[in-house]
């Protein structure tokens, strides 16, 4: 299990390489990277992500531990950034490794659904000097219910 809550930029291909190099005998590796939209369309100047230090790390750890309980996975990686992010920059990523693809895909989806609405992050989109807090999607809670 590798969890990082950080302000710094990360290179997802390097992260995947480091993550997978430590694994042995895996048959499937699934990764997801969330990226700040609006790079070419200029619909966003930048994104600000606020989080709850302490609770963020604890919540992510609990979510990852639950993922390990539910699926037979070999390892999992979660990186989530906070602070000021420019369009085109990575916000977060997850990676899951298992022997078979079904477990890796499902575990990654589960991680994403829970990180979205149970990890204490709040996004603010800034355009022309005006900031708007991103509202949680109406489907976010429904997405969690499918796992219960």
């Amino acid at each position, binding site marked *: 299990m590798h969890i990082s809550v950080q302000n710094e930029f990360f290179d997802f291909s390097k992260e995947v390489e480091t993550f997978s190099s430590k694994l042995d005998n895996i048959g499937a590796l699934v990764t997801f990277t*969330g990226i700040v939209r609006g790079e070419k369309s200029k619909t966003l100047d930048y994104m600000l992500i*606020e989080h*709850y230090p*302490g*609770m963020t790390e*604890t*919540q992510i750890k609990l979510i990852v531990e639950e993922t390990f309980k539910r699926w037979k996975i070999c390892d999992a990686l979660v990186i*989530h950034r906070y602070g000021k992010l420019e369009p085109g920059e990575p*916000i*977060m990523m997850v990676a899951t490794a298992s022997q078979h693809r079904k477990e890796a895909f499902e575990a990654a989806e589960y991680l*994403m659904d829970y*990180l*979205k*609405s*149970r*990890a*204490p*992050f*709040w*996004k*603010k989109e800034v355009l022309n000097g005006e900031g708007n*807090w*991103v*509202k*949680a999607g109406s489907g*976010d809670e429904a997405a969690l219910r499918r796992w219960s």
Partner: protein
Amino acid sequence: MIDLIYFSWIRERIGKSSESIETGASTVIELIEELKKKDVRYSEVFSDLGSFRVAINQELTNFDAPITEAKEIAFFPPMTGG
């Protein structure tokens, strides 16, 4: 003393990120009612219980939860991670 912590638009509208308070409230909802009487900013922010969440000692909980063991209570809108 209990530390109250605010995030996102709640922090912005209350105008501070945290404060320490003394309270006679025994549950979260009682605390919210107490805060609402204090100042119009609180009554506006906490007017719709569906629009925010609460965590006691960094653990997500509900509005009926007792606050007798609380050191830190955080109020924030639904999370938007990922």
